[in-house]
């Protein structure tokens, strides 16, 4: 199974985790995900996920003027988003542990 397919299920969690560190913007989120090794995620998927999380109230955003181009949209995690990140992390840990037990000989 390709990494991209696996990532789709956890992209929401990954994006929330990146933004939970500090307020950031789309391109930086993409770069952070790539640097962490999640380089199979399409740009559109990340921007779509950001939009869905914002619509769900897990993120807030604000526009800030940029020296290098158009205004950047900065995202921050809301309390609801933090709770979502916590429950998501727990679920992911359980799944990871279960998979580890299954995969190990």
């Amino acid at each position, binding site marked *: 199974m390709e990494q991209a397919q696996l990532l789709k299920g956890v*992209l929401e969690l990954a994006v929330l985790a990146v933004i939970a560190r500090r307020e950031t913007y789309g391109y930086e989120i993409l770069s952070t995900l790539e640097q962490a090794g999640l380089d199979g995620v399409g740009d*559109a998927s990340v921007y779509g996920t950001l939009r*869905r999380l914002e619509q769900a109230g897990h993120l807030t955003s604000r526009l800030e003027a940029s020296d*290098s*181009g*158009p205004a950047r949209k900065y995202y921050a995690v809301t309390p609801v988003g933090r709770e979502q990140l916590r429950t998501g992390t727990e679920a992911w840990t359980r799944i990871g542990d279960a998979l580890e037990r299954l995969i190990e000989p």
Partner: protein
Amino acid sequence: MTSEDYLRRVDAALRDLPWRQRRELLGELRAHLEELPGGTELSELGTPEEYAADLRSAAGLERRRGLVAFLRARRPRNLILTGAVLALIGLAIGAVVWIDSYQPIAFAGGTQLPLDAKPSLGQAGESIVFRKGRPFEYGITIRNSGRFTVRVLGIPASNTDFYAGRLLMSEDQSGRMDERPLERFHPFDMRPGSFRWLLLRGGYACTTGMGKGTGVTWGAIPVRFRFLWRTGTAWIPLEEPLTFSFPNGCPPATGSSPTP
């Protein structure tokens, strides 16, 4: 492919989404494209259609159909402009239809019958015996019952058979029904609420051939008028129909031109 081409194609692929939502998504994409490191090929993002599909899928944006979706996908300013233009076109069409049907000239209650007219036997109205060349005089009063001034152009000669002579009109436009000074007809502006006598004064004439023992009835008098650009005919119903009888017939004349 340039960034603008890419944006245009993504926009086309998201055409069903509400305009504001599409504008936000494209604004983010534009900012993203400008932040890409120099030398990045746009093809690395996938085709614009693939990008739009991934964006739609990740954001949970379902494809929208129907009239509401079609309208919401339009830019509000364009929708308002289109609506205003359609409303103006509708108003213009309505105005043209209304002007085309506007007919304010009505019978005002006064009739001047030929001196030899007698009540018709067994039917409504008056009857006269056609005698070629003998004096003929017939008049009605008209009134502008509308709210706008119209220009009265006359009574068309082709519609006043069996008569040849002048068309006269009263000089003043008051509602008096008694005899008033007359003048030769000329087109005039008829103000709302004003009156006029229109009088045919001349003689019986064979403008149309009629056989012996036949008869014909005038039930309405046509009055030509102009309102704005439109010229129309108001058929003024007569209070009492006027029947011509032809005991001796009437051979058609040539080249008669009775009234304006």
